């Protein structure tokens, strides 16, 4: 449960921060995705420079029971490179849009990473021993002169310093005309989907030379284009079910058993709009930037510009809960449109099925407890650097008299956006990405 005080409340404390301190942020260092693996032992980040950095949680130190293991760098590699499509005069960014982990099947770890056009399957494996004592080769690999070999020996494995290697095992290319916004691994662990603005494709993890198109919303005449796909995800348990969200604020649930091309949805989730409230901004702020199923699969959460909505899969006509992330921005939409912030794509994440988290501006992030209906605003800042000190809740003053410790809307820094957050699958550990830094917060253990 959330909030300050009370026996069961989570008390968030600063744990670690990764990244450079300097204010001058190189574009390549902008973090574009954050994702824990299924056990929570590994935490991956992707950035605008096409690089992936993976952190590993330390084994818990039995004597230091007051904190869970720290995350240290485990592996880092260049996932995607910038490309130029000369035929279409199109620059292809190397920015990593999404990372999704596969569940672990053997000693190695696998993840999918994608930029706008190409998805790659990466294998991350450890090497902690190496063969020594070859008869025909020196230790540095040079071949020995066979005439100098007078005795034979059996090569043995000797321990070496741990080396973590990342290698691309599959490259899934040339299937998307438009820009990929989502990838989602199916619960069958054999297939996955990739979604761009107008189409969704289904892939088999072993097969790179073909994929099946399962959703196509491209109109015959592009002048008739009214909405695009903004996010897509497979249901966590039903391998035939997936959802995709749109720029118009709708979510469609599709069943792959119904037909090969799922252009006809099985369910359409949409909240009716009050026509008298409609404005120029209505459609823009209703655009869904992220959709995530709860771990049980009974609910799904959507994030639009100002709110987070929880939907019950059994009820299509309205969300069961709506949480305001930063309602005070509604009276700032004009300037947010002028500085393009209104198009910022915030993500959201679950803790099981009870608490949801999402980011905001000024390096603030928000959590909503579905059970207690309490919410909290916290800040990712190097000023709160003391481990085991509980983070102080923040409050934004919309108008009128600003109380002490509150911050007024006009003082908010709109360049400090928290778009990407992740929650450890099993513990109360969260990863929060500011523009170029990664913060890790933990529940204060008593």
């Amino acid at each position, binding site marked *: 449960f959330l909030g300050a005080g009370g026996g069961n409340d989570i008390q968030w404390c600063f744990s670690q921060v990764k990244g450079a301190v300097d204010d001058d942020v190189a574009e390549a260092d902008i973090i574009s995705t954050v994702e824990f693996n299924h056990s929570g032992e590994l935490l991956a980040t992707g950035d605008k420079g096409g690089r992936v950095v993976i952190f590993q949680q330390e084994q818990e130190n039995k004597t230091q029971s007051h904190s869970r293991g720290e995350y240290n*760098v485990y592996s880092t590699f*260049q996932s995607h490179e910038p490309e130029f499509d000369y035929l279409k005069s199109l620059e292809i960014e190397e920015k990593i849009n999404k990372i999704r982990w596969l569940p672990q099947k053997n000693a190695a770890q696998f993840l999918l990473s994608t930029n706008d056009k190409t998805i790659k399957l990466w294998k991350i494996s450890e090497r902690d021993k190496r063969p020594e004592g070859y008869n025909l080769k020196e230790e540095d690999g040079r071949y020995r002169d066979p005439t100098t070999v007078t005795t034979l020996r059996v090569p043995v494995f000797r321990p070496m310093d741990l080396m973590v290697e990342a290698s691309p095992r599959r490259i899934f290319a040339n299937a998307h005309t438009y820009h990929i916004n989502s990838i989602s691994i199916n619960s069958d662990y054999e297939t996955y989907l990739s979604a761009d603005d107008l189409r969704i494709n289904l892939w088999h993890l072993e097969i790179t030379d073909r994929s099946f198109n399962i959703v196509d919303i491209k109109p015959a005449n592009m002048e008739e284009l009214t909405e695009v796909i903004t996010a897509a995800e497979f249901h966590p348990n039903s391998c035939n079910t997936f959802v995709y969200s749109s720029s118009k604020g709708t979510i469609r649930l599709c069943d792959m058993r119904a037909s090969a091309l799922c252009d006809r949805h099985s369910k359409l989730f949409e909240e009716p709009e009050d026509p008298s409230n409609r*404005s120029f901004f209505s459609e823009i702020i209703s655009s869904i930037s992220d959709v995530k199923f709860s771990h049980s699969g009974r609910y799904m959460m959507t994030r639009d510009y100002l709110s987070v909505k929880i939907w019950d899969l059994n009820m299509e006509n309205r969300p069961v809960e709506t949480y305001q992330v930063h309602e005070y921005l509604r009276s700032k939409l004009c300037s947010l449109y002028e500085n393009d912030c209104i198009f910022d794509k915030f993500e959201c994440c679950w803790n099981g099925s009870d608490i949801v988290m999402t980011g905001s501006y000024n390096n603030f992030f928000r959590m909503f407890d579905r059970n207690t209906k309490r919410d909290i605003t916290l800040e990712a800042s190097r000023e709160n650097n003391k481990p085991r000190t509980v983070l102080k809740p923040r409050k934004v003053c919309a108008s009128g008299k600003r109380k002490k410790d509150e911050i007024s809307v006009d003082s908010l820094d709109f360049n400090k956006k928290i778009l990407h957050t992740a929650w450890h699958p099993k513990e109360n550990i969260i990863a929060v990405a500011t523009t170029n830094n990664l913060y890790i917060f933990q529940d204060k253990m008593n």
Partner: protein
Amino acid sequence: QDTQEKETVTPERAEEAKLKAKYPNLGQKPGGSDFLMKRLQKGQKYFDSGDYNMAKAKMKNKQLPSAGPDKNLVTGDHIPTPQDLPQRKSSLVTSKLAG
């Protein structure tokens, strides 16, 4: 009977009025095709290898006209060259998160 109701303007409508005051020619279709087409065209640069090679062949030894002050504006005789495209080099530097 004609009842005159005082309409309270919602914050959103007030913001819309502000925007329309600044930009009177703002599109009739709010949030419609314009935004979406712009989104779909992300990454579009204007370099035509055909034009470039033809221009090179024509000019032979002469210098190709270089880009004006605004490299994004390509008009008239100016043929975009690969040099006009912003250099997209891959990151050779390790991420600072790993530092």
